[in-house]
Structures are given as C-alpha cells and as structure tokens.
C-alpha cells in the first residue's frame, strides 16, 4: 500500500507568536523526518495545546500517529484538519489511507471519491479507489473508475489486473478476457494466473481455478486477494484444511479482507470457537459496516452462546431492514422460543412459512399444476 504523505508545514510564522512554539514545530518536523515519531507526536501535541487552530499541524500529527500504527488516534486529527480546511487534499488522502489500513474500506472509498472529485489529476487515487470498490464487491464502480484510466494507461498491469478482475466478476467475461490476454502477453505472471483462475471460477471449473490460483500464490504471495481467491477455490474443491490456511494467509497480508474474515468466522462458529469467530466477524464488519450477513452470523453466535436476548435484538433489526431475510426470521423465531415468548416465536414461524410458500410458488413445478 502507498506510504502516507507527510504534509510538512514549514511556514508557521503566522501562527507562531513566540520563538518557543516555532522551535517546537521545527524540532517536531525534524524528528518526524528522522523517524522519531514518538518524539514528533509529543511535540505536535504540545504545540496544538497552544494553537489548536493550526490545521496543518493536526494533519502532521495524524501522519505521525499513522506512522506509529495508532490509526484510531490519527483519524480525529485528520478530521480536525479537514474540518478547518476542507480543501486540504493531502490530509484527505491520508485519512483515506488510514481508513484503508484499519479495514474501514467503505470510509476509505468515500474519502478517496472526494479526493478524486476535487483532484482529478491525482493519478494515485483511481487505483486506490478501484481497489476499495473491488474489496467491497462493487464491481460496477471499479469498472466505472478504472475504464478511463485503462484507456489512458493501457500498459499499466495493475490497472489491467484490477479492471479485468472486476469485469470477469461482473460476468463481462469477454471484456475481462482481453485484459487477461494483455497480461498474459507479458509472460508468466501472478496477475495472469489470478485472472485465469477467476475466469475458470466463473464457469464453475473450480479445480482449474484452484490450480491457477496456486500458481499465482507461488509467483507473488503478496498480490492483493490472491490467497482469498485460492482459498475459495479450495473450499469448492473440498480442501477445507488448505482453504483455512489460505484465508489466514490473506489476513496476514490484509487483516481486513472481508471474505477471509467472514469465512474464517463462520468456520470458527461451526467449530464453536466463538471468541475467535467474534474477532473475525468484527473485522469483517469494519470492512463492510452493517453487512447483514456478518450481523446475522454475530446473532447466531449469541444464540449458540445462550444469549437469546442479544440475538433477538440483532435479528429484530435485521428483519426490519430486510423483511425477506428468511434465515433471520428462522433464527429470530428460535430466539423468541428460547426467551419463552412462544407467541412471538410462532409469529416469526408463520412468516417463515409464508416466505417459504412464496418461494415455492415461484418454482416451475408449482406453475405446472
């Protein structure tokens, strides 16, 4: 991933009324440049106590905190900077990168979209934004963002790979295949095998896809999503042990990969390792906040752990948001029965029956009666 852009503000005369603060800032900047991030953070904070209105210093402090991996603290600093100076594009880009590192992909995408709108010339942003959309499963947005870039930079393998992946996932296999061919012309690359694997997955050639992904992993284990795709193919070819290893390998590269966290969480839940499952699902939710599938899994954990009231609350919200979510109605009914609320349980059960009957009525065998 890209390194954080350190916005170093050297001209602080306007805000430094005394020699001491000015020296403080200069010293902080020097420390940051020299890699003494802890020292820089302390001095930035000291300065900001005197001059909280110093927009650029909030941004600098954010960068130093991010450098230390203290993302939760960096976010409010960037936000303060942007509240004071909304047009500070570098701060917004850095905020997006912090969100990305935190696995808050949706937040990262939102900020990147704003940077892109305000600074269309920034060549770094479209690829980052496309990557976020790809991780969010928003293939059409990937295509929207990257197609113009691909026309401008036809030899850029990264763009071709990401756009090709999105096209194939979006069932635009022929267009995706053109990009695959382009990558393939450049030799035996991880990207090429990844795309070939994706294409094979789309036509249910799971064993073929598995073999392609295995080659991609061997060539470049750090390629984005290479492990998760390999893992999915392994699941579909019945190798659950190896698939778990690959999902974990993906998380070693990208701790907030949604699919890996969801799958490993579900596996952990099945194995009744609820603490671990909770950790995976919580991280998955950071990537896709509010994802109903993950929230449903968390509710199932509550049910499994004998906490039907907690499950009920989550499930009631889910069925309110998605009235056709049959599985959630099933689990909500169970929660009510466990809470000794048989009338509510029966009501949910009747909803399940109604939804089931509606689904049955759409089947061809029913129409032929």
């Amino acid at each position: 991933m890209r390194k954080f852009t350190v916005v170093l503000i050297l001209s602080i005369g306007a805000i430094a009324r005394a020699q001491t603060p000015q020296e403080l800032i200069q010293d902080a900047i020097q420390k940051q440049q020299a890699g003494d991030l802890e020292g820089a953070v302390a001095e930035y904070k000291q300065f900001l106590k005197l001059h909280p209105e110093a927009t650029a210093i909030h941004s600098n402090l954010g960068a130093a905190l991010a450098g230390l991996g203290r993302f939760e603290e960096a976010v409010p600093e960037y936000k303060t900077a942007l509240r004071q100076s909304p047009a500070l594009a570098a701060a917004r880009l850095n905020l997006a990168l912090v969100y990305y590192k935190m696995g808050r992909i949706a937040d990262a995408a939102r900020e990147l979209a704003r940077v892109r709108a305000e600074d269309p010339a920034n060549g770094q942003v479209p690829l980052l934004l496309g990557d976020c959309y790809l991780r969010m499963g928003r293939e059409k947005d990937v295509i929207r963002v990257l197609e113009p870039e691909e026309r401008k930079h036809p030899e850029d393998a990264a763009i071709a790979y990401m756009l090709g992946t999105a096209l194939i996932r979006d069932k635009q296999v022929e267009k995706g295949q053109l990009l695959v061919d382009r990558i393939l012309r450049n030799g035996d690359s991880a990207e090429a095998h990844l795309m070939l694997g994706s294409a094979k997955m789309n036509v249910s050639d799971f064993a073929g896809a598995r073999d392609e992904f295995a080659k991609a992993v061997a060539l470049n284990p750090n390629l984005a999503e290479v492990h998760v795709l390999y893992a999915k193919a392994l699941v579909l070819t019945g190798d659950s042990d190896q698939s778990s290893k690959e999902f974990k390998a993906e998380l070693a590269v990208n701790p907030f990969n949604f699919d890996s966290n969801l799958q490993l969480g579900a596996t952990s839940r099945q194995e009744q390792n609820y603490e671990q499952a909770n950790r995976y699902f919580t991280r998955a939710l950071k990537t896709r906040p509010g994802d109903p599938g993950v929230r449903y899994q968390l509710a199932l954990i509550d049910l499994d752990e004998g906490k039907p009231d907690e499950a009920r609350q989550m499930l009631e919200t889910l069925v309110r948001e998605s009235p056709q979510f049959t599985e959630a109605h099933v689990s909500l009914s169970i929660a009510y029965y466990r809470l000794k609320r048989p009338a509510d349980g029966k009501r949910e059960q009747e909803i399940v029956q109604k939804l089931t009957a509606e689904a049955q009525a759409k089947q061809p065998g029913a129409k032929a009666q």
Partner: protein
Amino acid sequence: MWLASTVGAGQLLGGRGASGQPQPLFVEVPPSASGIEWVHENAMSPSRYLPEALGPGCAFLDFDNDGWMDIFLVNSGPSDFWTPSKPVRNALYKNNRDGTFTDVTEKAGVTGAYFGMGAAVGDYDNDGWPDIFVTAYGKCILYKNNHDGTFKDVTEKAGVATPGWTTSAVWFDYDNDGRLDLFVCSFVDYSGVRKLECGNNQIGRNYYCVPRVFKPTGSFLYHNNGDGTFTEVSKGTAIAKALGKGLGVVAVDINNDGRMDLFVANDTVQNFLFMNRGPGSNGRWIWEEVALQAGVGFSESGRPRSGMGVDAADLSGNGWQDLFVANVDHEMFSVYENNKDETFRDAAQAHGVARATRLLSGWGLKYFDYDNDGSVDLLLADGHPDDMIDSYSMQVKYKEPLLLFHQGVDRKLHDISESAGPVFQKYFAARGLAVGDYDNDGALDVLIGNNGGAPVLLKNNAAKGNNWLGLKLEGVTCNRDAIGARILWKAGVKSRQRLKNNGGSYLSSHDLREVLGIGSAAQIDELEIHWAAPSKRIEKLTNLAPNRYIRIIEGQGVV
C-alpha cells in the same frame, strides 16, 4: 491391513482369518455366495423422471418365523411414466441358514404392482408374523402374512391404499393401545408435472429435477382399528398441516414421556418433529410440530437442507434419544444431541461427521453397535441423486463410498472407513440400508439397496471377541413387536439402556431383534425390559449367559 488398530478411540476388533491376517470389519458377500441375484431396475429414461432416482429400499425380516433373517428387496414397476418392457418385481429371499438365500418371491406373492420405493415391516395384527407395507410412486401395498410362506394383498380392505408418491414408512403405537399404527411419508406432488424436464445443464441433457421445484405434500397417519382395518387420522392435525417432502422417518420418544414421537427428514424444506401430546379434550390426538424451536428443522444458519435418511438412538448413553439426518452434498449431515428439554444442538462438527460428509449425499443409515463393545456406532450409505453429477462437478460423484464411524471412549464418532475393509473403498449409488444378523452370530450385518444395481450384503466381522446377548421381544399387552419398550442392562461395571425405536434409515426396515453388546463382560448381570404402554410390566432377569438369542415374552420371561 484392514484392522484399525487405533483411531484415538480404543481398539477396534476385526478378528483374524485362518492365515492370521486381520480381517476387514465388514466383508461384501457376492451374489455367487449369497444367491441373491436380483438387480434393481431404476427405469432410468432420457427424460429423467425423478422417481427413477430415489429407490430402492430393503428389509431384513423373518417372514417364516424360523429364527433366521430373510431379505426383502423393493423394485420399481409400472407407472404413469414407465411401462416395463419385461417383468419387474420385488424380491423375497428365504434364508437357507447356511449363508445362502433362495428367491421365494413368486410363491410368497409379494412381487409388487406399482413403482415401488420402500418397505416397512411390522406385525400390525399381533399374530406373531411380520407383515410388509410397501411404499411406492402410485399406490402402496400392505402384504399380510398368511403364516405359510405366503402373503395376501390386503391394502384395500385395510384402508391404507395411500395415493401419490410415498417413501419411508414406520410402524409404531402412537396411542399406546397395544396395536401398531402406521405413518407414511409423502414426498412431492408429482401429479401433472411428470413431464417437467429439468435440463440445459452443462452437458446439454435432461437431469433429475431438484425436488425444490415440486409442491410439498402432507404425510399420512393411520390408526390401527384392531380389526385388520385402519383409519386415516392425520386430517386436522399438525401432521396434515405440515406440508413437506418427506423421505425419512423414525418413531422415537424424544422427551421420555412414554409416547412415541415422529421425526421426519424433508428434502429442500424444513424437517418436522411431531411431538405426541396425547389425546385432546375432543378425543382427537394432538400432534405438535416443533422442529424449528427444537433446532432440528433447519441448518444452524437457518436454511432448510435436503434431509433424506434419519435415525435416532441414545448416542451418548444418557437416557435421552439423539437424532441423525443425512443431507445432500455441501450441506453436511446432522448429529443432533438431545438437550433434554425438547431442543437439540447439532454436534456434527464436534464428532467429525460434518467434515467427513461434506461432499456426500446420504440415504440409508443406522446408529448401531457394530462391534458389540456397548457403544453406539454409525454406518452411512451414500450416493448423489443426479447420475450426471460427475460431468459437471469436480468433486461430487454419483457413486459414493460407505462411511463407518466408531464411537470411541471419548464419546465421539470417529470415521474409520479407510481401515474398515475393501468395501469401504468402493463406490455405490446407495439408497436403502437395513441392519440385521442374517447368520445369527450376534454381529449385525448390513444390506444396502443400490439404485439401478445389485444390492450389497455385508457380513460383519467386527464383533469377534466381544460378547453379546440377542433379544427377541414379544409383547402381549403392548404391541407384539414391543416397539417403544425400554431395555436396561448391566454387565460388569457398565449399565446401559436402549429404547426400542422403529423406522429410521431410508425406505428400509431392520431386524426387529435387539443385540446387546457387552464387550469383554462374561455375562449380563441384570436385564430389565420395560414393556411399552399400555403394559406397565417390567421384566427383570439376572445372570444371563452371553452369545445367544433369547426370546422374552411379556409377563412370561425367557421362553
């Protein structure tokens, strides 16, 4: 090396042959040795009508009361989508008491007339002779035993000519009046849609429609009137209201209240657990369907699965009945442990059953103590319903292996199939499965019905070295087959108990005798038979020598 020496579950016994080499736990007995030459005709057509894919069932029964298990095999037959070009019939094989069988079908008069599915054996008229109920696509048949090696079709007179497409059935006494009643699973409404073709798959041919596309139906409960007739009593009850696609059923007392409940496995819709609540104030019997709240209706992720085979047994030895359901591939099978409050938890993952069955589709199955060590084990017969699955799936195959699980001292089921013998390395389009001791050696053998193929008879070698006692229970006040009786026994320091359930598996019927495994214990110190209601009798016997069958009559003890 077929003897599984250790599987983290204790020593498994396979015995040794004359050469001193370990023997397989189960050995396939070929037709040339058994004399069972019959082959199932599945009537597979280019249109792929779904009934073709679901049979056949099979049964162990002692139809001539000579103390040796005979074999009944169900075949397809004429239907509204198929006219056989040559005669197709069921098969009844008489046990010659020397490991071979003789086909007596024609003489016995049980050839069948419809597109047969399964068989349920029970002594519905309490005359001491087993009768046979044959389910079918078309119409069922009830064969009453004439006590002379022949049967009479009494379907119409008895009032059990169940229409539509019926699958598994079970005899049990739901109202504790001492007479066996009959529950019949109904599968989908196939009338008028048999021309529905599911095709355009990746190899461009018709394939068997997923049952999801067909309408569900209500199953049937027949009350035994005691005069050779039955009355259909499900109307107005939860049984009739619960529309399902029933394939497997087991009669079992879930809550230990002395009334037999019913657990039904449904395909692509939720399973049903019908709790027997006894008579209502209006005299009508009350059934309550509780599968959802019991945790056995859906997967733990709230989805209906494709339930096919079922069984029930006290797996953990705590006096409460646990359940099992075999599902289709990628759904994993279910090991439902009883929470003792009419709810269950699925322990398939903890037992290793989930992992072992992930790519399999299960039909016939049985919880039984194959090695007579006293703990309940498990045998599964598998096969994918779609004969073309190999063409478009990399992993799932049409023919699948049998799976054998041994219960270890850790109370977990351990998959020992790889070390159980060559037959566990073979692949079958298995459907029905029945368990019975055809050679009276106390080791329960296995019969498997294969779709479009010959049945497989497995001789059990796994129980050698362990002691056992075989029981033939005969009710007097309670039903003659003693379905619902509770058996408690003590051998050495170990006390065990068993509820005499009925049904289970898929389309099939087991040896009604009970074999009690006692491991290395020299005798059964104490044996109690708690006869099923309406009997209140408890038979108590002590110091019983092992390795023999005994006949116990309610109120008379060993005779």
